[in-house]
């Protein structure tokens, strides 16, 4: 699969940047002309991953969140990376309803939302080093032969 466009975005771990990250991802993905529902799915998954980086990774302390978006003919891959706390037990973290911060009224549904709105979610994490979440989605509405030249 050939990557036709790629952007890297770095921003501080401020909650106001959750909306910014969603707009950036949506603007980038729009180059493929997906449906509004597919676009909403991507925005929601990005919002979950970026929020997690800010509140769990950096625990609301200053840090830099990196988002890398790669566009393919009919798909997108988005990495959300923090250099924060890391996750001890990834399997536990991905369980529906599991949250380490119930006092913050977290629903524990973040990873479940990412998994059901995207086609694949990979998590790489090391305690004390940080977390990298990779979201992948194929756009069923997009005909790859129409978009091979996107981004010329």
């Amino acid at each position: 699969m050939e990557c036709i466009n790629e952007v890297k975005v770095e921003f501080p771990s401020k909650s106001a940047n959750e909306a910014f990250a969603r707009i950036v991802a949506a603007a980038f993905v729009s180059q493929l002309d997906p449906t509004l529902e597919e676009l909403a799915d991507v925005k929601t998954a990005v919002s979950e991953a970026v929020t997690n980086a800010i509140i769990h990774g950096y625990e609301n302390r200053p840090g830099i969140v990196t988002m890398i978006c790669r566009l393919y003919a009919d798909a997108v891959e988005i990495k959300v990376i923090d250099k924060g706390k890391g996750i001890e037990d990834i399997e536990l973290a991905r369980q529906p309803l599991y949250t380490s911060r119930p006092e913050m009224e977290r629903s524990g549904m973040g990873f479940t939302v990412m998994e059901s709105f995207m086609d694949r979610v990979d998590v790489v994490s090391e305690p004390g080093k940080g977390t990298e979440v990779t979201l992948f989605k194929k756009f069923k509405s997009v005909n790859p032969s129409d978009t091979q030249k996107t981004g010329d």
Partner: protein
Amino acid sequence: MQLKFSNRGSTLIVRVIGELDHHSSEQLKIKVDSEIIKSSTKNVILDLGKLTFMDSSGIGAIMGRFRNVQKLNGKLALVGIGPHIKKILDMSGILKVIDAYDNVETALNKMM
């Protein structure tokens, strides 16, 4: 996100306008809770008709208000759920515990 408050008897109606994520949920929590503890408020209707985006932080914020209203022996209901918001509400299972109605009038009738 913007909030518009109005009252119908002891029911507080909150119109949630715009995007409900972790950032705006923090504002919603503070502002709605300070209305809930007013003595005139018993029940709460969250009108999501003008909500354009919601993620799991919104789920947490709605569940949190639901619990706070219950603690004060009131009821909480959702109205005006559009397709995108429905998708995430369905996924979260929240509609198994919180009632949803088409519009404010129906909710007011059913909550009595």
